[in-house]
C-alpha cells in the first residue's frame, strides 16, 4: 500500500504541473482512499458484474481492463464447467467464493504453524526464514529475500527486462498488456479461463526486449510483490525477437493455503527466434490422507510460438493439489518452431491429477516432444491427457510422445488418454506409453545390497523421472527429487 500511495502522490505532483490533468489525478487519489476502506474487509461472496467493477476499481484499472473483465464474465455465464476429465469432483458453488479478500490472517510466528508442515520443511532443508515465508507468516522482516529481489530488479532493468506484477503492468505498461493479453488464451477459451479473465487477482508480467538474453532465471520467489498472487493468477510472458528467458514458478515446499480453488491462466508469446523455458514445481496443499481439504488446481497454460524458429519448453513437477486439471500447451504457429513438454506428476492418498499437454502444429517443419511420467500411489488417480494435432499446412511436422506410468499400490489408478489428429501426410507422429509397477526384481536387487525399502523406492522413482528432472534448472531438480521422496512417504509397506 505504501508504495502505491507514494506513486499516486508523485503522479499528483506531476499532474499538477498541467492543470488539465489535476482532476484526473485527484480522482485517482480518491479512488486510492476508497481502496483503503474496502481493503479492510473482503468483498462479500458471490460473482456478478458489480463485483467485477468493484474489483477492477480496487485495483485502479483503466476502463478497457474493466470492460475486458466484464466481457469475460458475460461469456463465463454462458459456459458450463468441463466434465470430461477423469476426476471426481463435487460441483463448485461459484457464488460462495469471495473474489476479493483482504490479506489473509497470517500466523504471527512459526510457533503457530502446523507442526506437520514444519516437519516437511525440515526434511526438505528449507532455510528458516523461507519456512516462515512459505508457511504464510508475515515476512516483512526477511531482509534477505527483499535485498535479493532488489538487486535482481536493478540488473533486470539494465537489460531492459520488465518483470513486475500483472497489476503493476496494467498501470505502467498498458500498451503491452493490451496488445498481448488474451491473445494466446482468449477470454472464452474454457470455463476456468473465462472465470480467471473476469476475476484474476494478480500474477507476473515479463517482457524481454529484442535480442536480450535474460541475465538471470526469473522466478516468482524473487519478485518483491509476489506475496499474494491469490486464487486467480494471471501470468503473461512476452519474448521479443531473438530473446531468451527461463521462468520458474512455484516453490518446492508445500504452500499453506486454505483456498479451495485456484484457476490460473498463463500465456506465453515467443516471437521470431525467441525461446521461453517455463518450469513449474507445484506443491499446493494436497489434502490429508482421507482427501479432506486441499487445493483444486484448474490451470490453463498455453504458449504460442508466434514467430519462426521460436521455441517454448514446459517442464512441470506436479506433486501437490487435491485435484489437478492442467494442460500446458504449445501452439506452433511459426515455421520450424519447437514445443516441448516434460512432466512428472505424482499423486498419493486421494489426490487426483488429469494433466498433459497439447501440441498444435500449424507451421511448416514444426517439432514437438512430450515426455510425461505419472506416478500413482495410495488411492490416487493419475491421468495423462494429451493432444497432438497436425493441421493441413504443417508440412514436415514431427512429434514424439512418451508417457509412462508407475503404480505403487493396489488401490491407485494410472490412465493415459492420448489424442492424435493428423491432417498432413508428411507428418510423422509417434506415441508410446507403458504402465507398470516397481518390479519385485528391482526391489530385491536394491534390498539385497542393503538399501532400505523407502530408499529403494525413491531411487527407482528418481530413475524413472530422470528424463524430466534433467530439464529443470539445477537447484529445482535437486529439490524436486527431495520433494518426491517426501511426497511418497508411507506409500510402501
Amino acid at each position, binding site marked *: 500500500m505504501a508504495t502505491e500511495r507514494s506513486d499516486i502522490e508523485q503522479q499528483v505532483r506531476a499532474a499538477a504541473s498541467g492543470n488539465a490533468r489535476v482532476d484526473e489525478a485527484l480522482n485517482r487519489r480518491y479512488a486510492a482512499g476508497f481502496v483503503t476502506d474496502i481493503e479492510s474487509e473482503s468483498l462479500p461472496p458471490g460473482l456478478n458484474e458489480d463485483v467485477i467493477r468493484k474489483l477492477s476499481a480496487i485495483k485502479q484499472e483503466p476502463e478497457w481492463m474493466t470492460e475486458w473483465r466484464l466481457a469475460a464474465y458475460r461469456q463465463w455465464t454462458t459456459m458450463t464447467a468441463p466434465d*470430461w476429465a*477423469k476426476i471426481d469432483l463435487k460441483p463448485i458453488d461459484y457464488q460462495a467464493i469471495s473474489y476479493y479478500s483482504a490479506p489473509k490472517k497470517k500466523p504471527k510466528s512459526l510457533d503457530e504453524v502446523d507442526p506437520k508442515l514444519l516437519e516437511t520443511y525440515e526434511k526438505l532443508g528449507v532455510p528458516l526464514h523461507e519456512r516462515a515465508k512459505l508457511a504464510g507468516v508475515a515476512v516483512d522482516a526477511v531482509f534477505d529475500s527483499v535485498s535479493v529481489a532488489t538487486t535482481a530488479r536493478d540488473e533486470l532493468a539494465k537489460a531492459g527486462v520488465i518483470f513486475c506484477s500483472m497489476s503493476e503492468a496494467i498501470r505502467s505498461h498498458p500498451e503491452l498488456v493490451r496488445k498481448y493479453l488474451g491473445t494466446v488464451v482468449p477470454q472464452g477459451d474454457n470455463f476456468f479461463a473465462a472465470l480467471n479473465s473476469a476475476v484474476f487477482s494478480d500474477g507476473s508480467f515479463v517482457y524481454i526486449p529484442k535480442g536480450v538474453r535474460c541475465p538471470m532465471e526469473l522466478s516468482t520467489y524473487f519478485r518483491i510483490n509476489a506475496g499474494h498472487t491469490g486464487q486467480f493468477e494471471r501470468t503473461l510472458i512476452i519474448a521479443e525477437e531473438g530473446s531468451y528467458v527461463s521462468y520458474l514458478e512455484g516453490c518446492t515446499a508445500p504452500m499453506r493455503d486454505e483456498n479451495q480453488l485456484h484457476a490460473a491462466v498463463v500465456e506465453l508469446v515467443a516471437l521470431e527466434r525467441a525461446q521461453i523455458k517455463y518450469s513449474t514445481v507445484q506443491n499446493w496443499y494436497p489434502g490429508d490422507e482421507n482427501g479432506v481439504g486441499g487445493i483444486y488446481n484448474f490451470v490453463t497454460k498455453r504458449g504460442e510460438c508466434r514467430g519462426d524458429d521460436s521455441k517454448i519448453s514446459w517442464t512441470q513437477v506436479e506433486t501437490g493439489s487435491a485435484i489437478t486439471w492442467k494442460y500446458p500447451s504449445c501452439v506452433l504457429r511459426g515455421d520450424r518452431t519447437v514445443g516441448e513438454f516434460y512432466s512428472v506428476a505424482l499423486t498419493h492418498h486421494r489426490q487426483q491429477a488429469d494433466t498433459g499437454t497439447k501440441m498444435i502444429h500449424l507451421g511448416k517443419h514444426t517439432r514437438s516432444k512430450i515426455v510425461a511420467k505419472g506416478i500413482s500411489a495410495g488411492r490416487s488417480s493419475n491421468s495423462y491427457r494429451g493432444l497432438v494435432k*497436425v493441421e*493441413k499446412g504443417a508440412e514436415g511436422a514431427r512429434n514424439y510422445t512418451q508417457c509412462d*506410468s508407475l*503404480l*505403487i*499400490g*493396489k*488401490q*491407485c*489408478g*494410472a*490412465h*493415459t*488418454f*492420448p*489424442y*492424435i*489428429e*493428423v*491432417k*498432413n*501426410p*508428411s*507428418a*510423422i*507422429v*509417434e*506415441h*508410446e*506409453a*507403458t*504402465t*507398470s*509397477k516397481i518390479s519385485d526384481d528391482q526391489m530385491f536387487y536394491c534390498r539385497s545390497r542393503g538399501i532400505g525399502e523407502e530408499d529403494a523406492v525413491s531411487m527407482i522413482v528418481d530413475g524413472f523421472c530422470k528424463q524430466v528432472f534433467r530439464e529443470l534448472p539445477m537447484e529445482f531438480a535437486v529439490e524436486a527429487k527431495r520433494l518426491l521422496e517426501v511426497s511418497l512417504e508411507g506409500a510402501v509397506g
Partner: protein
Amino acid sequence: MSSPFVQAMVDAAALARLPGSGIAWLDAARRESLVAFAAAGLPPPRGVEAWRYTSLRPLEQRRFALGDAHAAARAVDAAAWALPGVDGPRMVFVNGAFRADLSALDALPAGLTLLPLSRALAEDAEPLRFFLSRMYRARGDAFASLNSALAADGAVLRVAPGARVAAPVHLVFVGAPAEAELAWHARCLIELGEGAELELVEHHAAAGAAPHFGNLLADYVLRERARLGLAVLQDGAAAATLFRRAELRLDAAATATLHALELGGALVRHEVHASLDGDGARFDTRGVFAVRGRQHVDTRLHVEHRGRDTAGDALWRGIADERARGVFQGTIVVARGADGADARLGNKNLLLSPQAEIDTKPVLEIHADEVKASHGATVGQLDERSLFYLRSRGVPLAAARSLLTYAFCRAALDSLPNAPLAEHLGACLLARLPIRSEETPP
C-alpha cells in the same frame, strides 16, 4: 425437436410389425428403447467423447424407410458373398431380411444351433430375454437403443458345450438396391458353451450401389474354455452407412480372436466391446482399415480386463487416401483386482493424401498394479529408404508404394488361421490400394 432421421425412425416404429410382438417383456423393452432413442436423439457434434471424431450431422438430415418389403424378391448373385475357405453353414440377410433360399442351414454340424431371430422368438423367446431386455443408457449408445427397439431379424447361434464346429459359419449381410433408401436393424446372439469352438465369418457385402443404413448389434458369450475365431470382412456398398457393435463376454480361460478388414461404406462405425470377466481369458484383435474417396471409417475398440491373468493383444493398421478420414479409438481398461493382466495395443497409420485425415486415440485406464500394459500409435508415411530400395531395383514408384502399403497392412491379417480366407482378404486389400502413377518421387 427431433431430427428428420430420428423422426423417420420413430414414425416407422409405429407401423413396424416386428417378430415376437405380443410378448409382454419384449414389447416393453422395445418401447423403452425407442423412448430412450427418441429422447436422446443422435449424439451431438460436441460433448460426447465416444463420437468425438464422427459427425452425425449429415446423417441426421436423412430419412430412411424401415425394412425392405420386397427383400424376399431381390435377386442377389451368390458371387457377392462367395469366400474361399468359407464353406460351412451360411445365413444370408438381404437388406436386413432373412433369406432362407440363399442360406445353407441344412445338415448343421452336431452341437450347432443356428436359426434366424424371428424364428427363435416364435419358438421360444424366453432364453433370449436376458439379451433383448437390455437397455443401453450411456450417452452415445443411440444406435444400440435403436437396434433394441427395431431389430426385425438376425442370427441366433449356439454351440453346445464341448462341441467343435470345424467348418466356418458364414453370416452374410447384403445391401441390395431398392426403391428407397432403407434402414435395417439386425440383432445377433452368439453363445459358445463350455469348451466349445467356433469359427465365424461376419461378412458385409453389396449387390449394387445401395445407399442404405445398416445397424447390427451382436452379443457374444463365451463360456469357460470356449474358443472363438471371428473374421469380419466389411466390403459394403460405397454409399452405405453401416453401424456395427459387438459385445463380447469371456468367462474363465475363454479365448477370442478377431480379424477385421474394413473396406467399404461411406460412413462406417465399428465398435467392439469386450469384457474379460473370467480368469485367464484372452482376446486378441487384428484389424485393418483402408479408406479413400470421402469415406469415414471409425473403429472403436474397448477391452476391459476384469478377471485375473487376462491377456489382450491388439494390432491395428489404417491407411487413409484422397479425402477420407480414418479413426481409431482403442481403450484398454484394467479393473481393480485384475492382477496379472497383460495388455498391448498398437495402432499404426499411413496418411497418403494431403486431404485425408487420421485420428487415433489409444487409451489406457489402469486400476491394478500387477499389470503389464502398453500402447503405441503412429501416423506417418511410407519409409523413404524402403521406397528407394525398391526403386533402385527397378520397381516403379507406384508399384513400390502399393507394395509397401500392402505389406504394412498385411501384417495384421497374417495370423488368421484360415489360410485361403487370409489370402482372399489380402487380395481384397491389394485391389483397393491406390495405384497412382502420376506422382513424382518426393
